[in-house]
């Protein structure tokens, strides 16, 4: 590993041909056609389940190769930099994915809901279509969609569980930073402890979020189908939750690796990638907390 850096920057690294990419494509194909067949009720979730298993195999297998190569010092600094840049641009693409949903939220709140209510040039919406609709936020629309008969629903106040969750995620941001510093200083013990704390906080967050969802579905009349509020609420927090779960699993993997003694103070792309990802998830949550729960 020490000799990783000995590979001069003027020598490029081109990996051998590999079965993983095409296996990965096939995996996603099975995964998605499984999902299609399931949604279309052509067959049960079985194909999809195979896809999921293949997906797990993909991550384990492909990452094992990369980790192995890394451990054998096959990556020079240039490769390391390529990986980092790749990861940053990937995170940027994720930001844009969330941007689409935030965009939908802002558009609905500031434009389309008031327009349905007849604001400005859209006065005829009120006069001709939705006489009884009052444009307020949160709303489940003129048809008052939702699980309850009277179409009512309640929202989750920001300063309950969501605030606690905010604290949890912020704290996890601190713990991973401490772990990172410990890694750079070669203090493996602190590294291991704080990394463990980070993913535990992550899973705690997911657990609380799940609790909140159950509460919303069973008691608040707030579901995916509760009009535009329910749609934006669950899609935003839901995709975020998926990302936290993935991030926490990645942290767990990294933790196993640090326990095995992987990473050096100078070279630890895997750790950094996950840390960046974690910070990204954290920032998205702050956006959610402010715009979905609070204001």
């Amino acid at each position, binding site marked *: 590993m020490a000799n990783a850096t000995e590979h001069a920057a003027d020598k490029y690294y081109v990996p051998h041909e590999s079965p993983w990419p095409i296996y990965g494509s096939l995996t996603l194909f099975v995964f998605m056609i499984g999902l299609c067949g399931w949604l279309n009720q052509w067959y049960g979730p079985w194909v999809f389940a195979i896809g999921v298993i293949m997906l797990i195999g993909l991550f384990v297998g492909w990452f094992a190769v990369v980790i192995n190569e890394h451990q054998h010092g096959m990556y020079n600094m240039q490769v390391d930099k390529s990986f980092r840049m790749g990861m940053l641009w990937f995170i940027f693409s994720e930001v844009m994915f969330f941007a689409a949903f935030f965009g939908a939220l802002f558009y609905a709140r500031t434009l389309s809901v008031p327009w349905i209510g007849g604001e400005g040039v*859209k006065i*005829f*919406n009120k*006069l*001709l*279509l939705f006489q009884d609709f009052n444009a307020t936020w949160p709303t489940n629309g*003129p048809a008052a969609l939702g699980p309850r008969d009277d179409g009512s629903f309640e929202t989750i106040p920001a300063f309950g569980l969501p605030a606690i969750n905010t604290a949890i995620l912020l704290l996890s941001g601190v713990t991973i930073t401490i772990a990172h510093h410990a890694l750079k200083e070669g203090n493996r013990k602190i590294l291991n402890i704080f990394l463990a704390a980070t993913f535990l906080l992550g899973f705690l967050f997911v657990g609380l979020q799940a609790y909140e969802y159950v509460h919303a579905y069973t008691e608040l009349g707030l579901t995916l189908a509760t009009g535009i509020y329910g749609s934006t609420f669950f899609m935003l927090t839901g995709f975020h939750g998926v990302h936290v779960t993935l991030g926490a699993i990645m942290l767990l993997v990294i933790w196993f690796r640090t326990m095995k003694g992987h990473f050096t103070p100078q070279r630890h792309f895997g750790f950094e990638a996950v840390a960046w990802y974690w910070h990204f998830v954290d920032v998205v949550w702050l956006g959610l907390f402010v715009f979905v729960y609070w204001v």
Partner: protein
Amino acid sequence: MTRHARTALSATAFAILGSLAPLAAHAEWGNLNMPVGVTVLSKEIHALHMTMFWWCVAIGVFVFGWMIWSLVAFRKSQGAKPDTTMTHSTKAEIVWTVIPVVILVIMAIPAARTLIAIEDTRNTEISIKVTGYQWKWHYDYLGEDVKFFSSLARASDEARQLGSGVNPESVENYLRDVDNPLVVPEDTKVRVLLTAQDVIHAWWVPAFGMKKDAIPGNVNELWFKVEKGKTGLYRGQCAELCGRDHGFMPIVVKVVTKDEYRTWLAGQKAGESTPADASSEPAADSSPTIAALPAAPQG
């Protein structure tokens, strides 16, 4: 002819063709250009279209001319020697940034003016609610309790079926005829309030210069005022893909004199000829005051 001369000649011929071709869009040459409409707005729009067109021709003559000149004058086959020192010129680049900006501003001014006129819905005299259905239109004269559906005329509908064996040329106004046209008076500012029942449609009558989407759960507005003396039939089509029979939901507007309109309206109210409105009419009810509604505030 040498090979090079041939190449150059054909390149030139092609280039000339390329720059002349837009000219063919001029009205004189038949069914090639946007027809001039029968409303004030459509005339303004037509003028705008022609202005833009001539600007493009002018710019085209310049850039295509430049290209052709280069291609002809600097042929290697004619012994042209490249001037490799010519790599940039800040002055030239400023010029060809600034001049287009100026041209664009000149183009934008009349466009903005027309647009503002289009959006000015004050003082409308008649309001008609138009609802798109898959695949027909519903017209509702607000405040008059006159409403009916308008669908593709029978003859066209039979002819247009796959393998009908009917020659479309033999059908009068093939695909452009309806059973019940919309009837409006000339010289009257008519407001059209557009919405849809199922998917998005768009109401387009080229002679009125107006097209607007009919969107479910949303009311859009447009207006037209047909000039005095321009009575007659005006045809249009649904202009937003709305499914299988999108191509088969035409619009026909019958413009009549104010008197004829009054008579027609009275006849309708008395339950004359036009087929009774289907009972599937959506909930929205036409309150008597609605025709006199104020213009929506300008956004």
